[in-house]
């Protein structure tokens, strides 16, 4: 068990080291906040129309959510933005978001990125920035 953990940690730490890439050019590469806003505009339409996800967003203004998601993603991928919204724990508190709902939403965002014309590589790098939010979004209590 101990030798397993040592091997595992060294191996994955090494790979993580190789895998970390500079992100600063991703923001300008995709066309900045204008592109992000288009992506989330489209994604939010799909999310609000989704029979499973839609009900969660009743009474949440689309334009506000779009602005917050754009700002947040911009900041997370190294763009010149400051996220001014609520923390993820706070925003999703009392909603009891499930992992299934989370994946569903991510699929809409993925789909929107493809439809707007981002490349698979750009899509992956954006998802890499958003993925760690999962643990602060799902199951934040009812």
């Amino acid at each position: 068990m101990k030798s397993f953990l040592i091997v595992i940690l060294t191996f994955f730490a090494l790979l993580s080291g190789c895998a970390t890439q500079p992100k600063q050019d991703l923001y300008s590469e995709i066309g900045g906040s204008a592109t992000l806003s288009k992506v989330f505009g489209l994604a939010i339409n799909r999310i609000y129309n989704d029979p499973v996800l839609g009900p969660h967003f009743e009474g949440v203004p689309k334009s506000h959510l779009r602005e917050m998601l754009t700002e947040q993603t911009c900041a997370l991928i190294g763009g010149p933005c400051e996220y001014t919204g609520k923390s993820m724990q706070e925003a999703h508190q009392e909603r009891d978001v499930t992992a299934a709902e989370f994946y569903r939403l991510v699929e809409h965002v993925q789909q929107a990125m493809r439809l707007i014309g981002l490349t698979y590589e750009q899509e992956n790098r954006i998802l890499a920035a958003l993925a760690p939010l999962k643990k602060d979004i799902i199951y934040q209590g009812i």
Partner: protein
Amino acid sequence: MIRKLFLLICLSGLSPLAGATGSSLVATGGITSFEGTAGGGITPWAMIAGYGSEEEIHGTAALQQLDLGEYQLRTFGAAIGIYDRVELSVQRQNLKVGSGITSNVFNLLTQGAVSTAPGTDIEQDIIGLKVKLFGDAIFAQNSPWPQVSMGAQYKKNRDFDTSLPLSDGSVPLPQTGVPMLLGATQDSGTDFYLAASKLWLGAAWGNNLLANVTARMTKANTFGLLGFESATDDSYALEWEGSLAILPSPSTAVGIEWRTQTNRLGGLAEEKTVTDFFIAYFPNKHWSLTAAYVDLGNLPFDDKASGLYLSATVNL
């Protein structure tokens, strides 16, 4: 075999379950290894079978075929993933041993007196259990920790003492199967393993990168197909397995794998490190197809045991 494969695929398309294979993202369930657990082709991964999220129960059915010429390995089975936490699997393996091989066996045993014999089958059943211990292989992108699962595979060789007949139907060595002839002393055994897996989104020039390391405690000879333990060695040995894959598109993964073996029996049944190179295709969440070139290193009377591996997984 191919017919069965297509049947399965067609069934999956017609199934009323189509459209309900689970919520997890495509390809994140991995494929199904030839031992029935979710993983790569030859090694278990820490991922739980199927696309079920932590609120869902989903499963997979899969079949695999490895063409090694005189040896043909055909396997099939099913797995169920419960709440993205527990995986249960059953698998049947069938190793067809060609008459060229059994003839060699008798030739050797009788010092040339008997030089032809019909082929035979070695079958094995595997019941697998896997439990996710901690970690999130895909979403914990800011953590160096992989997802880690612990598992067990109970294996029962069904032909441990199935005697080899001669061409005239006579049985010179009753109650002695191929595993026994080669020196194995047990017909069953349980492997225990720890698997650590991690996916890095966008890490390889924007493509996703996946790595897996598995440590296995085993008493098996050639996966158990040649039985378990030997007269001189009945203790567990630690073996290492790994996979490294890159996903150059949302629906493809290419990679390499390796798996060390104990080589307890030696001689004809010498075991070497298994390696493979694979391409997996995930057109959607209903099914995936994998083609690989697998090199087993050695099987009795075949010191270049390598060939084409095909595997299909249907997600339920």
